[in-house]
């Protein structure tokens, strides 16, 4: 009887031993896997640390570049304007004080000098405005577009008291954006509309907006000189002009500024036009609401 019990116990022991062996093997295997995972995690962590260091480095470089640009702009704005003012000023002085000793041609030459210094001053201002935009952060607020556009139109009408200018402003949708920058966009577009219709007996300008699910589009249409669509890709380039300076004044930065600001707001700007048949400029912006928050900068 005892022999049978012993044999059975022995069998149990063997089974348990086998189980134990298996469990130990399993544990060893799990350990191995764990070691592998730890290695992988270690590698990934090292990679991450490297990426973070890279990013910090690039951020420092970017900051330095921005600071250099700032001080460059500062120099330009201050130091270039001063001699320009002297050239303009003394030409004017010569014109005034020596007018009796200057014949018509000489007076004309001085007027040219003064005119050109004024243009150069404008160029400097425009260049600076353009260069500063990329550094600015968008401060988003709700913008009452109707009020903004109506004010701009009033301001521009005052500049041309003798012209017959008919402006219609439709109902304009509100938008979300940086007030100062958006004002700049519409000021440039409206200014162009007024400028390029200046040769018409009756100028006609129309401003309106359309809105759909995810974007709001504004348009400014005029019956002015239009542009040649063959050169469309130059329209928004910096210092690119599609008209001669003798036809219409300008430095060729206005639309480039519009383009930059609109892009900063994740929007689009495009235009339609034909030579001598007017033009229509469109700007559209994605609608930013709490559900589909789009990050702009």
């Amino acid at each position, binding site marked *: 009887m005892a022999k049978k019990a012993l044999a059975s116990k022995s069998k149990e022991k063997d089974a348990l031993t086998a189980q134990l062996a298996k469990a130990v093997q399993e544990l060893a295997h799990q350990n191995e896997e764990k070691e592998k995972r730890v290695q992988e995690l270690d590698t990934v962590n090292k990679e991450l640390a490297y990426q973070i260091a890279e990013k910090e480095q690039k951020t420092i470089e970017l900051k330095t570049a921005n600071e250099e640009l700032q001080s460059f702009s*500062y120099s330009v*704005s*201050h*130091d270039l*304007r*001063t*001699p*320009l*003012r*002297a050239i*303009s*000023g*003394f*030409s*004017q*002085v010569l014109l005034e004080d020596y007018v009796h000793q200057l014949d018509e041609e000489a007076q004309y030459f001085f007027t040219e000098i*003064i005119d050109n*210094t*004024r243009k*150069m*001053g404008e160029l*400097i201002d425009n260049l600076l405005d353009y260069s500063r935009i990329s550094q600015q952060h968008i401060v988003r607020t709700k913008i009452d577009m109707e009020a903004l556009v109506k004010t701009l139109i009033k301001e521009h009408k005052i500049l041309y008291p003798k012209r017959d200018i008919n402006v219609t402003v439709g109902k304009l949708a509100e938008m979300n954006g940086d007030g100062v920058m958006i004002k700049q966009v519409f000021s440039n577009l409206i200014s162009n509309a007024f400028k390029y219709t200046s040769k018409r007996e009756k100028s006609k300008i129309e401003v309106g907006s359309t809105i759909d699910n995810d974007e709001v589009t504004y348009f400014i249409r005029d019956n002015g000189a239009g542009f040649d669509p063959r050169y469309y890709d130059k329209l928004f380039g910096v210092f690119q002009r599609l008209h001669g300076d003798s036809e219409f004044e300008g430095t060729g930065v206005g639309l480039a500024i519009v383009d930059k600001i609109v892009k900063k707001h994740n929007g689009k700007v495009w235009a339609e036009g034909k030579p001598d048949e007017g033009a229509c400029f469109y700007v559209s912006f994605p609608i930013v609401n709490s559900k589909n928050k789009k990050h702009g900068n």
Partner: protein
Amino acid sequence: MATEGLQILLVEDNKSDATLTIRALKKHKLVNNITHLKDGAEALDFIFAKGAYEGRNIDDKPKVIFLDLKMPKVDGLEVLRVLKTDERTKLIPIVMMTSSKEEKDIIESHKLGVNSYVVKPVGFENFSKVIAELGFYWLFLNNTPRI
């Protein structure tokens, strides 16, 4: 206040700007008495009757100071700071005249208590007009406390 006394103090290091400014003021017959100094250090010595200006009557204060921003030695902001913190001079109107349209300069000047900040226009016609308007405003239109 004596009308023969000091009227405008112009602190400007750039010779051309100074010449054009003085010309504009004289042309519009705004003043007979313009004192022109070339840098901030000289300006402070003059106002406080020190150094080369030791004998000057310190109570003869300018009715308005046209102050340039960027000058060698002591710059405009420093002069502004000193004058606006000294009891004897803090009420003198100071017009900052400069080529700089930079926000940080505008902010800093206003923090220090500048009365007016004007950017010198490039075109001379405008420059002359601005100077004349400033002169007229600060000398005749604006009421400065008797100091």
